[in-house]
């Protein structure tokens, strides 16, 4: 069973593993592309490993690299704007 490759050709050549992976990681993939890549990972070990690693990095970024604006910042902004209206 092989699905038709839904990734666009690049200069007439079919998308490489790295090109497919990037579309997936950058969250630009269509449903068909995601499904195709999922099936691809079952037999392509390097893609599976790369995906797993990059996905873990993304999760770590989301868990650790967000910050919350300090208290009072909204008020300071409102006050500054109140001076010009």
């Amino acid at each position, binding site marked *: 069973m092989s699905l038709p490759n839904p990734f666009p050709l690049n200069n007439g050549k079919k998308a490489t593993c790295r090109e497919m992976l990037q579309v997936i990681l*950058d969250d630009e993939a269509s449903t068909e592309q995601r499904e195709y890549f999922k099936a691809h990972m079952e037999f392509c070990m390097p893609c599976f490993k790369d995906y797993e690693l990059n996905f873990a*990095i993304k999760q770590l970024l989301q868990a650790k690299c967000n910050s919350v604006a300090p208290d009072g910042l909204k008020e300071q902004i409102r006050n*500054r704007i109140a001076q010009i209206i």
Partner: protein
Amino acid sequence: MEEVVRQHYADHEKQEIFDKEFLPHIHSMYNFGYRLTLDRDDAKDLVQDTYFKAYRFIESFQKGTNAKAWLFRILKNSFINDYRKKVKEPNKVDYQEVESYYNSDDVDRQITPDLRVEALRDMIGDEISNALNALDVDFRTVIILCDLEGFKYEEMAKILDIPIGTVRSRLHRARQLLKERLSEYARSMGYKNT
């Protein structure tokens, strides 16, 4: 660049747009400001300036459109104009060259053979944040926009005023560099190359 259609808003409408469409993004804006300046006080000033400008130019914003991308673009421009000069300018990267060099799967997979998911699970402190902050600001920016804020290529291209192809190659390079940094941490934590 699309033509800006000037809107006309009454004062109460301006307030409403500001409160309902602009202010809810304050945490993302602050985080973006912090990741650009790497300084909490500068980030506060940058966010304040951005919101101030956003209010003054609110009639260039069309109600109900993508306020977050609009605000991020103002913040990025303010950073370049007012803050980047203050910071030591890192070396410019030739992205064209980068793209052709990194256009091969083999190259990618040779760079970081030793970073494993298990090592990432042990990075429970500031490792990832430090690794991100250590990247050149242009690389840091695309990671934040894509991975933290979920912007699409097209939105990133508009925020950064660069072509979509450049967004793509910059993101690719940024991911590689981040992995290299994380591999260094992994090695220092005692994970062996395997």
